[in-house]
């Protein structure tokens, strides 16, 4: 019975292969011994500008290998991080966290290492104080080394300002728009009335800035939901609604802007610009066929005072097997010298005071933004920023509660009261 013996062997092999397939799913990573070769994994997102710094670190520490993974957008990084937290495995040693969803992370902050064990307290004075505070959880654990912050200024298009009879010089524009949102919107209304074109690209980003600037946004500092009956928020919403209904919004689809063409063809004249947004403006203008001559410029002014949008932190995951080495790398990456290199590579504005002072003292003209000294302007814009408490559902409220009614407002399908009522309705359904 040679035939059947052979089949027995074959089937045993097939069965073993199947088991092996299952077993390989659970391979364990080896623990490195001190001084030996170490592999550190890091996940960042968007334009982080770290590639050269990794090389530099690996040259200085030959036993370290950095395996980097960059996710295209902050939104997708959020999904990636949340999925891996939910699964309880898969996080890289160092994880970049974004300020907008830090509130949700803080609910489960014990998934990340308390960096006080690795000496972050000695560096507490390096950062602007609110950045360090943001990384501190309710129990006083510090889970993130601050990387960049997002102080906001106003991007504007010089030639469009001139055509409307407005000043186009950077300082004059800053003086023109100096004041509250009422000033910004009243200049905008004049612009709309004289040109028939829109003032800002869409209401969502402006609303984002208006909310981020408040001492308390969608949540109170104690973590209570703070939208319904929040008179300050409602007053700002009414201001924005009036401006939008007056024709100031170009009702653009964010992150698309008609393939960037709307930055080139004069569809709108101003844009709210945190530091990292400068790269977005440039990228979209170029995608739409424009260049420096399109005339975008950056003014040292922001309606209603200082505001921050975004910024990131480097956290070390509790599941990491090389916590000490990872903390050392994250620490190094966020030191002032490295933050300046990061700014030069990616335009992300540093969160450490020394790096900010350095950029303010040595302004380099940005060729795309009509030679504006963006580094020193952003340093000025960072003064007076107040850290706002971000609740667990902050990004949900921003995107899915206020996003849709603001789009309907932009398209004229709802008026201010209708849009506010719709936002409250969505809030009850989605968060309530």
């Amino acid at each position, binding site marked *: 019975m040679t035939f059947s013996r052979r089949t027995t062997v074959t089937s045993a092999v097939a*069965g073993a292969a199947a088991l092996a397939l299952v077993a390989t799913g659970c391979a364990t990573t080896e623990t490195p011994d001190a001084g030996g070769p170490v592999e550190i994994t890091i996940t960042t997102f968007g334009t982080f500008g770290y590639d050269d710094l990794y090389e530099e670190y690996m040259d200085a520490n030959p036993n370290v290998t950095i395996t980097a993974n960059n996710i295209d957008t902050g939104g997708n990084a959020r999904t990636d991080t949340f999925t891996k937290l*939910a699964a*309880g495995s898969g996080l890289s040693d160092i994880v970049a966290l974004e300020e907008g969803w830090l509130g949700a992370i803080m609910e489960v902050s014990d998934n990340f290492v308390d960096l006080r064990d690795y000496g972050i307290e000695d560096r507490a004075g390096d950062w602007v104080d609110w950045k360090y505070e943001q990384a501190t959880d309710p129990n006083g654990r510090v889970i993130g080394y601050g990387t960049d912050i997002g102080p906001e200024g106003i991007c504007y298009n010089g030639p469009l300002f001139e055509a409307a009879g407005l000043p186009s010089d950077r300082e004059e524009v800053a003086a023109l728009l100096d004041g509250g949102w009422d000033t910004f919107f009243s200049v905008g209304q004049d612009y709309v009335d004289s040109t028939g074109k829109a003032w800002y690209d869409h209401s969502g980003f402006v609303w984002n800035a208006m909310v981020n600037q408040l001492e308390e946004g969608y949540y109170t500092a104690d973590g209570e939901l703070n939208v319904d009956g929040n008179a300050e928020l409602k007053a700002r919403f009414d201001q924005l609604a009036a401006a939008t209904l007056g024709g100031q919004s170009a009702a653009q689809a964010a992150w698309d802007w008609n393939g960037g063409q709307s930055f080139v063809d004069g569809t709108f004249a101003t844009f709210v610009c945190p530091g990292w947004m400068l790269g977005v403006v440039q990228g979209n203008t170029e995608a739409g066929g424009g260049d420096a001559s399109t005339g975008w410029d950056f003014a040292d002014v922001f309606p209603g005072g200082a505001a921050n949008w975004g910024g990131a932190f480097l956290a070390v995951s509790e599941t990491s097997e090389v916590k000490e080495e990872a903390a050392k790398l994250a620490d190094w990456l966020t030191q002032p010298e490295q933050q300046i290199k990061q700014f030069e590579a990616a335009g992300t504005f540093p969160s450490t005071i020394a790096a900010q002072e350095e950029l303010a003292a040595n302004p380099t003209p940005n060729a795309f933004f009509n030679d504006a000294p963006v580094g020193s302007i952003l340093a000025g814009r960072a003064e007076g920023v107040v850290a706002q408490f971000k609740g667990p559902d902050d990004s949900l409220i921003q995107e899915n509660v206020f996003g849709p009614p603001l789009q309907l407002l932009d398209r004229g399908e709802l008026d201010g009261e209708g849009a506010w009522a719709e936002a409250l309705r969505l809030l009850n359904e989605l968060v309530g």
Partner: protein
Amino acid sequence: MSHRLSRLDLKASPYLYIAPFFLLFGVFGLFPLVYTLVVSLHDWPLLQGQGDFVGLDNFAAVLGDRFFWNSIFNTISIFLLSSIPQIAVALVLAAILDQHLRAKTFWRMSVLLPYVVTPVAVALIFSSIFNEQAGLANNLIGLLGIDPVEWKHDVFASHFAIATMVNWRWTGYNALILLAAMQAVPRDLHESAALDGAGAMRRFFSITVPSIRPTVIFVIITATIGGLQIFAEPRLFDVSNAGGIGGAQRQFQTTVLYLWEMAFFRQDFGRAAAIAWLLFLLIVAIGLVNFAISQRIATAESSRISKKTKRRLAAHRSITMPGGAAPAVTTTASDDAPAVTKNEEVVR
């Protein structure tokens, strides 16, 4: 000893042969299914993990949610707009490819090409084509004097646009599967029908389609499963809504996209699991309905043919009977005079 071993072998080895499939199915199919059910019965925030057992509360909450029903409507609408034209066109394409064409492989490769492109790339290209301000689609219909369509705001237009992406990707793939089945249809069936005077259309509907019925059912069922799980296309169709709501007013939020929003944006894993299970049940139900319908169509078709044939047979007999023995060939299909003569020639 050897005898006992070989008896064991006879009994056990078939099970060992199929074991790999069942092991993999257990790990990647059954386990997630059961685990999802467990999650759906609990209060389960995404990040905090398992909470209290809540019974069917998550299912009740989802069934009472207007956005769930909106997503079901969108899913079914997009499914119908994609599956029906897709399978119809795939059948026709397959029939054309089944003819004696020059450069056969070239044509077959060409119809499969869209399938090779990743859905994400397809979604990006098509969302640019369906751009409302300066997209190709609006420019083209502008040439015909039609007003620009709001592809990303209008409910029906957005469904049409998403169905177009699905069709573009899957029609060729289905055509190739149908083509493979068509090539297995015995050629002599076609030849004898042709000899009996059946035209190309007649042969397609009376021979080809009934013969490939099992494959058509397979294609319909896979299209149902795929069609009800559309995600990448609506997710990427509108980049400005990062929260996965599929249009400012959820015009094209499909059920899987709603599931995604629930799990990863609203961070309610329990409810998301309930949505997954409801979708699973819906797919099973629609699959069964599809199966029943395609079964019935096929049987109705063959019984209609046989009735017709019987009638013709009877008519033929009544004509030929008086003259004596009926020529065997003519009884099969046609009683047209030219066909008869042709057949007789063949017989001679």
